């Protein structure tokens, strides 16, 4: 672990900020399969349930080449360009 000293005036907390929450899912929704075995079965079912609850939302499916590595840049760019929201199955 690297420790650094805060270069700022320390008026703001140092943390990773979450993206703004909208309170409602609209538009285009990505579901990202990280390629864990059988994860697709869960996500398939999840997609069906979401489609029922969110009939006006377009659902797009994506899959990482492997769960062991971060998603390739091109895939991240593709997801970002084509969607407004993302649901990612992080692990088992």
């Amino acid at each position, binding site marked *: *672990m*690297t*420790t*650094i*000293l*805060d*270069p*700022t*005036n*320390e*008026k703001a907390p*140092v943390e*990773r900020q979450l993206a703004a929450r909208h309170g409602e899912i609209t538009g285009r929704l990505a579901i990202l399969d990280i390629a864990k075995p059988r994860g697709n079965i869960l996500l398939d079912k999840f997609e069906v349930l979401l489609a029922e609850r969110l009939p006006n939302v377009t659902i797009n499916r994506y899959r990482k080449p492997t769960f062991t590595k971060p998603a390739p840049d091109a895939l991240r760019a593709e997801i970002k360009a084509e969607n407004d929201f993302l649901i990612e199955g992080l692990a088992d």
Partner: protein
Amino acid sequence: MPESAQLLAPFSLADDKGIDVSFDGGQQTLLCFVKEDCPTCRTVIPVLKALFDAGVNILVIGQTVLGNNKLIEAFDLPFPILNDEKLKVSFAYDIETVPTLIHADKNGKQVELQEGFVKSDWQALTKSLVDAGTDIELDWDSLPDWRPGCGSLSVDPIIADKLRAEAENSPLRARKIEIAPADDEFEFMFDQGFSDGLPIVPPTPERVIRMLSGTTRDPQEVIATVAPNLAEATVEKIAINAVMAGCKPEYLPVVIASVQAACTDEFNIHGVMATTMGASPVMVVNGPIREKIGMNMKLSALGQGNRANATIGRALRLVIRNIGGAVPGGTERPTLGNPMKFTMCFAEWEERSPWEPLHVERGFAADENVVTLFCMTSGPTLVVDQTSLEASQLASSMAMSLESTHHPKSYMSSDTLLVVCPEHVDTIMRTTGYTKQRLKDEILEATRRPTKDLVQDHKSGVGIPKEKFASMPEEFQNGQLTKFASAKDIHVVIAGSDAGKFSGAFHGWVTGPGGSIVVSQKIED
């Protein structure tokens, strides 16, 4: 080294079997600091062994786990070696050399200290520790008369700064930020908004400690209040930003002085950062420190390639960003911005100048170190003049170029920092006795234009509004104006390589109390 009769600090360290062993006085003890790869330490091990066999209370402190184990195995030691791999005890005891032997009395006070191995001294100490008239079982003749010790790991420059940063009396007070092992530290710092857009050096405590060695100031001294957040810039905070910028410790005094200058009411760093004109400080360094820290004042003085020039200017900018909070899109609102906002710092080539250098002109002694801040919005705009042959001709040629400052019809509002190149100096000095003041005066005079030529017209909306012009007295209407309000608004320094007739001018922002005024600040150690 601890002074004689000094009370030794108690400590507790695990031995090679993981059992905590404490030193807290209470009985006479010999402390010996060793490291395995030191030949002298290996020389003294048999002596320590013999002392232990004679019943002397011994604590041997080793500086690496691997080394300790090697010593135990190689010498079949009957006593443990305490593990000081974090070097906290070695650091606290200010150990510079191994072996260091400290004789502590039963009250925990230091009686004697020996560094390295001097056989006669060790023999004398041995005799004082064991029963009178006896000697330990040791073949003293097999030992050398004298061996110097080796450097303690705790004074290894790389390790020592870390130990100083982590010591109980560490001067550091800034909030510590732990970056998770899975995080890339460079990406993390970008994400936190600490960077100007280029990678920054992680300001680890040991790097900041090293940076602080560049000044004699107290790390908690408040140097300035930095706009727009009106936050206090301590020496420590400035040092952190100097580390990030890539500065060496010896640059720190220049950075500190530049922060002082920038945060004056005259320089008005808040306005400089906030203006949509995209202004930025230009730093000119004068005095002996230029050579001492290796600044560039010659070929490519205003360009890249010199660490001091590049990082000092960048450090000031990071201080304003991180401590002051001036961030593009926040209070920093430049329409275009300009690359000088990353860094712009150079030194004057005083020795190549026929005139007094900038800082002397501004009231400082020649041997004082001074940084001068000028607020620029454009430039360096070249005066490409390879054909003027004498001073006055070149002065008026420069003036024609300077008329473009802001706009050719924009008069009396700005100032300029004219960087005269050596070949232009040579051209000027073909006129014997030509002074810097005369250069400024002739430039100013050559910009003089009829006021009526500066009125707005169909070719340019920039200029004196027609209604305003019409309301002015006849004397004004028929008069003339110069580009700058006075020759004092033309600042002249010498820099650049000996080849090329290309001087450069930084165009100012709005000069005067409503804008930014040039500020010079003495650089203190």
